[in-house]
């Protein structure tokens, strides 16, 4: 990190690191130097919704994965589902199974990346350790076995995509009506062989985070701990669901506000408000209004809303998680890491079940159809939370309007709140220590946000933190990038 003080009393620190994309934080101080407010800005604009207008709707499952290099499958799945609603068709059994499997693969690779590559350096090397080595390479040096395991776990997730579609990242093959390609037997066997190692690595990650929880109870419990509503997808029995299912909203005490909600009705319950200081809008739970309707999505939210997990090993951890707050929602932002790992465990166990399904290699992978309805809404649980694609077309299938409600956008109000909470705890006055800066960044990193939806590049994600005094005058600027 490069600290610098210029003539205007501006400190430049060169990179919010280990997050996706470009971001800026403004911290406003009270006259006594304590933190009064904080704002998390996303200062880039993509324009996907606009430039997709005019395209044929069936192109969307291959255009929208380009939004993100980490969660392209979630976009493709949500998009294909929206197309299926327009066509009025359902995917074939095997097509659905393969899509579910690829989606699981992406969840594994994204969660492994978030935990092992981006966040574990803080737990393993220390919050205040040398920032030059506080990354996956530093972890590889001191904990080579764990680093290699983390990297291989991510590889397993990506290999699921590759062995079905031929590509690791921007996959082709998720199509309206199912899948473009079947899974061949040799690839099924090869993927199945990965499962024991993947489960073992996830369990090592769980041991690591649980030990960290035990050793740092105060910090973990107090880290950006604030009540919000939660949104997640559940199955018909309330089990955690990532690919299909219905929506469930719960309140701050865990009471179910809406259950088994068809994602196609999302606009009845979610509204968005643009804010002047960020390109990310502020979504909220409509019935409670803008002030009281902030909700969170993602692993923490999903485990908070779920009644159970689908697989035995994950269920065991889930019960432990639920006991933490006496069956009430866990609000501590730090628990995103723990829930991410529990979710990953379910994903791997579920992948094994799918790979053992005799119909997974069936050739009947796609239902054919054509334009039948002007509107389509698709939903999937991206690694970072609930994702909606909403298309309106003319009678020829040309897109007139595209609305994409992205998980990170829904967490935006809460990320903002988390930054404020952590800043209040660790920032005193205009001078920021590197360790305090890292903790403010870590509050964002808990949500694993995908701001630019670009691929990770360690140490090169620029972040600016501005500290303003009570009169709004900038007294410190910290830049890393």
């Amino acid at each position, binding site marked *: 990190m490069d600290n610098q003080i210029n003539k205007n009393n501006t400190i430049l620190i060169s990179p919010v690191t280990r997050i996706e994309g470009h971001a800026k934080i403004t911290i406003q101080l009270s006259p006594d130097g304590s933190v009064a407010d904080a704002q998390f800005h996303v200062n880039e604009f993509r324009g996907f919704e606009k430039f997709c207008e005019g395209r044929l709707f069936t*192109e969307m499952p*291959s*255009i929208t994965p380009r939004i993100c290099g980490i969660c392209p499958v979630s976009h493709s799945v949500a998009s294909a589902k929206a197309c299926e609603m327009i066509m009025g068709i359902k995917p074939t059994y095997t097509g659905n199974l393969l899509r579910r499997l690829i989606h699981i693969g992406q969840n594994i690779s994204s969660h492994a990346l978030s935990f092992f590559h981006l966040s574990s350096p803080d737990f393993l090397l220390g919050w205040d350790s040398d920032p030059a080595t506080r990354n996956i390479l530093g972890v590889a040096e001191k904990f080579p076995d764990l680093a290699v395991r983390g990297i291989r776990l991510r590889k397993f997730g990506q290999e699921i995509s590759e062995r079905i579609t031929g590509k690791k990242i921007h996959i082709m*093959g998720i*199509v309206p009506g199912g899948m473009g390609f079947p899974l061949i037997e040799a690839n099924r066997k090869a993927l199945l062989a990965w499962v024991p190692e993947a489960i073992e690595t996830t369990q090592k990650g769980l041991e690591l985070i649980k030990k960290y929880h035990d050793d740092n109870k105060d910090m973990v419990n107090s880290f950006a701990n604030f009540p919000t509503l939660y949104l997640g997808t559940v199955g018909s029995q309330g089990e955690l669901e990532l690919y299909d299912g219905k929506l469930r909203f719960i309140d701050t005490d865990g009471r179910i506000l809406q259950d088994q909600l068809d994602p196609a009705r999302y606009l009845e319950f979610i509204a968005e408000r643009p804010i002047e200081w960020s390109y990310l809008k502020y979504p909220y739970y409509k019935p409670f209004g803008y002030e009281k309707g902030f909700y969170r999505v993602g692993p923490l939210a999903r485990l908070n809303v779920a009644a159970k997990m689908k697989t035995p090993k994950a269920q065991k951890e889930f019960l432990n998680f639920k006991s933490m707050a006496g069956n009430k929602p866990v609000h501590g932002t730090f628990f995103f890491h723990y829930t991410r790992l529990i979710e990953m465990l379910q994903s791997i166990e579920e992948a094994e079940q799918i790979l053992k399904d005799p119909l997974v290699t069936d050739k009947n992978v796609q239902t054919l159809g*054509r334009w039948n309805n002007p509107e389509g809404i698709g939903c999937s649980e991206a690694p970072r939370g609930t994702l909606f694609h909403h298309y309106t077309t003319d009678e*020829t299938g040309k897109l007139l309007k595209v609305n994409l409600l992205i998980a990170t956008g829904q967490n935006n109000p809460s990320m903002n709140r988390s930054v404020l909470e952590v800043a209040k705890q660790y920032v005193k006055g205009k001078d920021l220590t590197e360790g305090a800066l890292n903790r403010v960044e870590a509050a964002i990193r808990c949500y694993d946000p995908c701001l630019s939806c670009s691929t990770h590049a360690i140490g090169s994600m620029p972040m600016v933190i501005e500290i303003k005094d009570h009169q709004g005058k900038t007294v410190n600027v910290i830049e890393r990038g």
Partner: protein
Amino acid sequence: MAKIPVNIDGKAFEVEAGKTILEVCCDNGIEILTMCHLEGVGDVGACRLCLVEIEGINKLLPACTTKVAVNQVIKTNTERLKKYQKITTELFFAERNHICSVCVANNNCELQELGYKVGMDHVRFPYLFPKCETDTSHPWFVMDHNRCIMCTRCVRVCSEVEGAHNWGIMNRGFQVRIISDFDTPWGESITCTSCGKCVQACPTGALWPKAVVQGQLAKQPEMIAELVQKRKMNL
């Protein structure tokens, strides 16, 4: 047909008089890059990729529309030609909006293959980014002007093989566009027989069937020549 002597790339050949340089080269296994050429329909020399050098003639001539002549000395593989082929390819990409990664023809596109073939790693000319329409009005097919390179293969196959004359050309220069009938939506055409030959003939993702998505497109432009041949033989 009488045989005549020609020299191509330093080698002597006895070739049939009346054939084009492109035909002669194809007959003798000499590769010439083409884009607007399509077996089964007439050549128009539109794409300028098949330009060759002919001794004694200052300008470059398209192999597809130039006939062989006695003792002609032809060069198909010079640095000068390679330079022009690369420029031509780059200009194709710069003129409209070609985004291979999201195109339905990705990995099944003659333009994309051409880019690889000439070693295009970037485009040196400013992109025009024109605002182009996508005509989705036909019940089975789409015409996306963003991906059209004006090879006119669709126009020729429609008139010469199908005899429908649905496709035509409008405007000049970079404003040139393929049109259906008198520039009306394709779905409203009174001449189109919906035979789909234009879709098979199109070298890019400009014309494609609505039923397929990325990764599923499999065009068969060679079926046009086969069809023409079968008709000649009254099969």
